């Protein structure tokens, strides 16, 4: 804010991004007052928080896997993503319009919001910290290939990179290319290859070999 608060001294956050004590108490004050005034109820706040867990990258992975295994659904998704994702149970009420962009052998899409942090929350949940940060927002538009390399994603010069800056009323989900050596895989099996970053466009899906290595490390 341009107005200053006298008690601003304790405003710095710690390294993990935890809110300062001033903001913690400010949040409680505003929330309690809005409940007292009947703007919303405590229960509605709880329900809203619980609902955050239902919107996660798992929703996006399910949609991508379905598109990979069902050509009709894929065509529908690319033509009218709001209708298509609604048909598989995604609640698009009061959500911005959704558009799905297909990565191909020729074109790789990567999505950003340089002005704030617009993100396809209906299908990916809340954005990761880096997506909201200055470094990604500033740099991905001017040096997308360099930024993708920081994510471990190396694209050949033969692939055109398209950066989508979500400046207005639409949110974009990337439909990554289906990895090789996955013939005959079910949608459920394919979901494990589809990472959040592959649907933002900073990465490509895991290969079957990478998935196997990852699973081995975890067990």
């Amino acid at each position, binding site marked *: *804010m*341009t107005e200053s608060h006298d008690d601003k001294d304790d*405003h*710095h*956050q710690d390294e*993990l*991004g*935890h*809110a*300062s004590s001033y*903001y*913690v*108490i*400010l*949040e*409680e*004050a*505003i*929330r*309690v*007052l*809005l409940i007292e*005034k009947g*703007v*919303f109820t405590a229960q*509605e*706040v709880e329900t*809203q*928080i619980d609902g*955050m867990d239902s919107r996660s990258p798992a929703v996006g992975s399910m949609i991508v896997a379905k598109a990979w295994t069902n050509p009709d659904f894929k065509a529908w998704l690319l033509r009218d993503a709001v209708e298509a994702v609604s048909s598989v149970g995604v609640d698009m009420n*009061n959500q911005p319009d959704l558009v799905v962009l297909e990565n191909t052998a020729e074109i790789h899409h990567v999505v*950003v919001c*340089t*002005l*704030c*942090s617009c993100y396809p929350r209906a299908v990916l949940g*809340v954005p*990761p*910290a*880096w997506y*909201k*940060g*200055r*470094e*990604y*927002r*500033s*740099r991905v*538009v*001017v040096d997308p290939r360099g*930024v993708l390399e*920081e*994510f471990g994603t190396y694209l050949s010069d033969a692939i055109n990179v398209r950066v989508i*800056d979500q400046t207005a009323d639409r949110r974009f989900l990337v439909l990554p290319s289906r990895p090789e050596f996955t013939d005959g895989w079910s949608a459920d099996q394919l979901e494990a290859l589809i990472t959040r970053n592959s649907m933002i466009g900073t990465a490509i899906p895991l290969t079957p070999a990478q998935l196997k290595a990852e699973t081995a490390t975890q067990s």
Partner: protein
Amino acid sequence: MTGVHDIGGQDAGPIDLSDHALSSFDQRVDAMLMLLVHPNRGAFRVDALRRAIESYRQQDYDSLSYYERWLGAVRKLVVEQDILSEEEIAAKIAELKAQKVGG
């Protein structure tokens, strides 16, 4: 003049790829904002939230956490929309502080 938020193309350092879950503070601020902008309440539009965030001074925009920025903007907007007054907010903060000291 461009706003503090309008940073596409600027120089910046390497990207910190570490992921951390939202804190309960973050979740509550997120929930509160979503409820306020929901058409059933229509306290203000998300566009107004953006405008309020864009009005931060550079030092605040840079030093506050993401959800602290949101919360400061929510405070500005609920006052602007006559939903709460600064006096009410200050009184409630004092009340909550006194409760915590009193244990």
